[in-house]
């Protein structure tokens, strides 16, 4: 069986008290999907590394550590499949995905203004699973998250509203 590991970054924004998601246009398929991507062989089980790499690529000029940080959302990755993989000619594939929440270190508006408007789209979270709203990956992830026990993940804490205040560290 073919296995595919993904590091997916969920960028949640609160707009008029409604949660929204920032999605990126998939260069390969043209649909709207999460920032993130495949975990390279040298990144196996170090999803954070893959997620940071993908974010720095896809969200450029925003930089990890300066403009945003990533927080793991789950205590273990989610799985789905086997289902036919588009990129592997329909070969049945089991997907394993670890999800990260992106937190802006500056105001979200300021960060978003530096991104190319053509490549990104902010969509309301409600209805994300409906056909045609976003990529299959987004729909499947959202459905999977919805079925998870809410105590196992930090979904609400991941809502980006204002920049994170860092508590000064004890030395």
């Amino acid at each position, binding site marked *: 069986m073919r296995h595919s590991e993904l590091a997916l970054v969920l960028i949640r924004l609160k707009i008029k008290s409604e949660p929204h998601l920032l999605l990126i246009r998939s260069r390969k398929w043209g649909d709207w999907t999460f920032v993130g991507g495949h975990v390279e062989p040298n990144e*196996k089980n170090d999803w954070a590394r893959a997620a940071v790499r993908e974010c720095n690529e896809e969200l450029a000029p925003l930089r990890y550590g300066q403009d945003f940080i990533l927080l793991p959302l789950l*205590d273990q*990755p989610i799985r789905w499949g086997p289902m036919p993989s588009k990129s592997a000619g329909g070969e049945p594939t089991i997907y394993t995905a670890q999800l990260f929440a992106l*937190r802006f270190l500056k105001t979200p508006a300021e960060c978003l203004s530096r991104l190319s408007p053509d490549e990104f789209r902010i969509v309301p979270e409600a209805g994300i699973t409906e056909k045609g709203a976003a990529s299959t990956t987004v729909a499947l992830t959202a459905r999977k998250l919805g079925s998870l026990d809410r*105590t196992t993940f930090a979904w609400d804490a991941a809502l980006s509203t204002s920049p994170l205040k860092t508590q000064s560290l*004890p030395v």
Partner: protein
Amino acid sequence: MIQATSTDSAVTGEQLLKRACALLQILRSQARRAFVMELTGTPKAGKSTSVVTLQTFFKEAGYQVHLLRERAADCPLPMKGHFFFNAWTTARMLAEVLERYETNDDLLILDRGFFDALVWLELQARREQVTAEEKKIFADFVLLERWRSLVDVTVIMKVRPDIALGREHQHQIVPRLGSLMNPEALAEFNDALDYVAREFANQFSLIRIDTTDAKDVVKTNLELLVELLPRIEAWADPRIAVVPKDAVVQLFGDRPFIHGEEAKPALVQLANQVSFQKRSEAEKNPNVVQLIAAGVHTHRDRIVILERELLHKKTVNYGRRTLWIGCHVDEDREDLLAAATDCLNGRIQQDLHLSTRPQFEFLGLAWDKTREETQHLGLMFRVPIRSDYVAEHLKNKQFKKMGRSGQIKSVFMTQEEIVTGLNELNLEPWSHHMALNIRLTNA
């Protein structure tokens, strides 16, 4: 009468001294506290001589030895041998043990201690000076696991009453019988000694010596050392769980961590390959990896960060802060997970002074092959603190120690704060990986 090992006549004091010297190196690098031994027994059995002999011997071998003198002579209470007298000497002895066990001492010698307190208690019960209920409560107190477990070996020296009296009267111009130094009382004492040894056999690690027929003091003490050194060795250099490095390399591949659905099967695979080795041997063996049980304490949305002293050698080697508390797995059990959590539980009690038996949630396996130091494999657990009171009490707390293991401080932070401040935190590698990759707290 030394049990088990018969003394090889070829064993000389010099050889034992050499062995004790070698053992000291291991003890200093691995033990977290002093080795504690109690000597007790019939008056005139040779106990005081042995105490002095052992003290001299171990000092000669380079040990920092602390002797806890018998306190009976210091007790201002007039009624020797009575319950309050026993309570006074026991409390005094306990206070001194607590003061000393975690200093830089290598060896603590108790001239009468916990076992002796129980012998006197038994005598007092037989004389109807204490009720059965009082006896039970006092014995339970003396045997409280926390301090009873601090005594690593108990040497009981026994001698027949007539021989004891002979030794007592040997140098006296006018021999007299005393309240204890008379045939009946000594026989009663010996009987109580045997009773306590039988009754509490599984609570003490005993070495029993009968000096009734002993002619040569040096020989008796040589025999005692021959019994004693392996006990110190087994304590300072416990057998710990290791797995072949090849198996670990194969299991982890390029991964620094195994979690999620793969973790449990990986653990089963590891468990099949576990063997036990003396820790000092494992440290030197590049072909094995030592198993470490490690727990991350969490409370609501916060994670407990443990901060070492800036100049501690672990700060230099691994990093200033860590998210876990851990220890070697030195219990040989069928169920590796149960053995690991048991060991971890003991360590949590020692280091954080928590006696809750928490729920351990298995997170996965950590092994960092990118570092030079690849001798340890972590069995990682999440340890949720359920009580707000407990958490509140742990906040910004300094865990002070007198001994060599160094102080730690606990700080509570959210995972968000940890990830944001990662550069300043200087986390050791396993903690670093977990903070970035696994959600450790509930929202």
